[in-house]
Each structure stands twice: as C-alpha cells, then as structure tokens.
C-alpha cells in the first residue's frame, strides 16, 4: 500500500484518432481510440488532479461535431466515481497549456494550481510572432490565460520555475522544456515516499501518448519513438522519455499516458454506467477499491 491512491479517469474520447499523431511515423497507418482523461491522486490530506479537461461549455459541441470528441461527462460526475467532488480538490498540476489539459481551471474552487513559468512565458512570447508561426500556439485558449490570471490574483496559481521536489510530500514536478510544448511538465509520485523510490509513477502529460512511444511497434526491436507533435524538439521528447523511465526503474507501464486506451487492460479497471473507465493504479492504506 502506498501513501496515495491513484486513478486515471476518462471524461471523453475520440474513437478514430490517427495513430501517426500519437506515434511519429508513417501517415494513414491506422486509427485508435483516444481517451481524454485526467489523473486523481488522493492521500496525505490532499486531493490532487493532474490536468483538468477542456471547457465543454465553450466548445464542447464544436469538438463533438467537427472533431468526433464523444461521451463527455462533467468533472462532478467523473470524480464521483471515486467519491470526490470538484470542491474537494486541493491541488491541480497543469502539465501544459493545451485546451484539453487546462480548460477546466474554473471547475475547482478550492484548489491551488501549478504550472511551469516557461510554459506561460513562452506561450505569450510565441504570440508576438506573426500568423505564419501559428503552429506554435495552436490549441491554447486565450480564455485559459484569463482564467489563470484570475487564479493568480486570488493567490491560487503557483508558477513553478523548473524542477521542484516534494511540492506535496512524495510528489515531484519535472520540467521537460521544449518538448510537446515550451514548458511541459510531468509529475512523479514516489508512492513509498523514498527518494530512490521502488514504487514510483510518472504522469507524462502529452509527452507520451501511448506505451508504444517507449518501444515502437516491433517488440523484437524496441526503441523510443516520439509523439507526432512537438513545438520543441523530438530529440528533447526522447530524452525526457528516458528520464521518465529512469524515475520508474525502467518499468515503462508506470509512466502513464492518459491518452493510452490500453490502460484499462493493463491495470484494474471498470467501465462506468456512462461508458467511461476508471483505471486504478494504487490504493493507499484504508482506501477502498473503486473498481472491484
């Protein structure tokens, strides 16, 4: 039993997502189901989320109609599968400023939010560039920057400059600069509390989309394969992946890509009445299973 209970909670999905976006390589080689999910971490008096989901009120219909995003359910319903309400959330780690990770800033009225300084600084910088560079700033919602400003004025937006150990006990934040985005961050949970943890989990944000990013598609010839989209560089993505693997002792299933559909078969899970999935990674002492 670790110090924290940890679940990955789907809140929507795209049923036909191009594999080539998840795993850099040939185009038109297939499609996969892509869950949209966030991570719930509970323990040590904390209720923590990694990422928040997107702003369904503003563009849910647009995403559904034009991008095939389906079966969205609100955080109140998704978190309830683990006995948590949005008001219970104490801490949110924002891995990067894309709309589907940062769009729910308004949903957690009692939480403090953590994001990398580099992520915010560089988004704003990139927008000083001309429209020919808009590739670099796609998927960022100016409304999220306004929401972040509101939170900062309330003292609830903590801007982290680089790596930070024990942001809460046993949980570290790591900057993966110039990877998927300018200031992407991943979250390491050392669930035994030890500095050289034997029970570590890494929540990769979008720096890893699928376990295949760690092995490629040929099990006889494994190698690191970057995701399709990097506003930074794909070499930085690979080095960041290698660091994540080191943090979990090479056990790549412990690096969690929330968009990986196979999480529900790799770990204990259940389907909810809404057709979403609760994936259970760890249980702290005294915590009941939410999937048994």
């Amino acid at each position: 039993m670790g110090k924290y209970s940890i679940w990955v909670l789907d809140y929507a999905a795209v049923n036909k997502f191009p594999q080539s976006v998840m795993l850099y390589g040939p185009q038109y080689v297939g499609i996969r189901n892509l869950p949209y999910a966030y991570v719930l971490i509970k323990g040590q008096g904390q209720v923590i989320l990694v990422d928040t989901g997107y702003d369904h009120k503003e563009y849910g219909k647009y995403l559904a109609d034009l991008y095939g995003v389906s079966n969205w359910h609100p955080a109140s319903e998704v978190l309830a599968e683990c006995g948590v309400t949005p008001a219970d959330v104490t801490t949110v780690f924002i891995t990067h400023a894309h709309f589907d990770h940062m769009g729910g800033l308004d949903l957690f009225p009692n939480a403090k939010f953590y994001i990398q300084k580099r992520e915010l600084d560089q988004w704003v910088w990139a927008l000083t560039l001309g429209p020919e560079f808009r590739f670099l700033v796609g998927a960022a919602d100016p409304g999220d920057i306004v929401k972040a400003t509101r939170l900062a004025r309330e003292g609830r937006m903590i801007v982290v400059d680089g790596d930070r150990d024990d942001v809460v006990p046993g949980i570290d934040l790591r900057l993966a600069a110039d990877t998927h985005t300018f200031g992407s961050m991943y979250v390491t949970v050392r669930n035994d509390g030890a500095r050289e943890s034997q029970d570590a989990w890494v929540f990769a944000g979008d720096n890893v989309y699928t376990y295949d990013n760690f092995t490629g598609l040929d099990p006889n010839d494994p190698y690191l394969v970057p995701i399709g989209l990097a506003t930074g560089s794909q070499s930085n993505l690979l080095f960041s992946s290698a660091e994540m693997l080191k943090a979990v002792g090479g056990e790549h299933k412990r690096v969690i890509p929330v968009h990986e559909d196979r999480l529900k078969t790799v770990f204990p899970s259940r389907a909810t009445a809404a057709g979403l999935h609760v994936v259970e990674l760890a249980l702290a002492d005294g915590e009941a299973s939410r999937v048994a």
Partner: protein
Amino acid sequence: MSQVDPLARYISEAEPLHDLLRRGLIQLSGFLLKRTVAGPRAIVDYEHVEGARERIREAAEGLRSLRAPTSAAHHRGHLVAALVAIERALAAALSTTDPDGDALFHFVQESERHLRAVGRATPGFETVDFKQACCAMQGAGAPFEARFTG
C-alpha cells in the same frame, strides 16, 4: 460579372481582425499574469504590451472599414465591443493609475467575453485554433464524419 456574397466577404474580412484581437488579448492577459505572479516589486517587461498595442491598432483600422450585412451586424457588434474593451485594457496596462491591475483585468475579461460570443455565433471564430490542436488533429478542416466515412 459574379457577385461575392456579402456575408462571405464579411466573414473573410472579419476573420483576420478577430485573430488580431485574440492575439492582443492573450498578450495583455499574459502580461498581467506575469506581473501578478512576479509580485508588486518586480520589474516586468512591457514587450508584450507593445506587441498588443500594434495588433490592436491594426484591428481598429480594419474594423473601421469593415462593412457588415444585416445578418452579421450582431457579430460585428461583438467584435467592436471586444476592440473597445481591449483598447481600455491597453490604456490600463500603460497607465500608472492601475497598480494592482484591477482595471486591466476587468477590461481583459470584458474583451474575452465578446470574443467568446463571436466564437459561439460563427464557426471558424473560436478563440482556440483547433486546426493546430494535437488532440483534435483528426478533424482539422472538415466535418469529422466526412473524413472517415467518405
């Protein structure tokens, strides 16, 4: 001689102006965010404010000459209201009488509300550029079903 549909012409002319306003909004709110997290004693670079000023100037020029058919009058109204609010936000950012950023934040929010309204009214005017969005990449540029069932 073919006639360009007035609404189509309006949309094609309004889209870049909307983009200018969107970018100016991000720059001003980004400036305020950086100033807020840096704290009251920090010296904050005004580069983003200058960048926003240029974008707002361009948007204002374009909106002055933008003619909207009756069916787009409401849409244009929101764009103009967004511009007015962001001009006031810019003035607050450049003034010395708004040390806590209250006025700047107020007008940033107001501008954002109007840009959201424009986005709700018209596809293609969303404040998020989904065409570059990794997690929505499959749908860029065409209705979803048409891309996979055609």
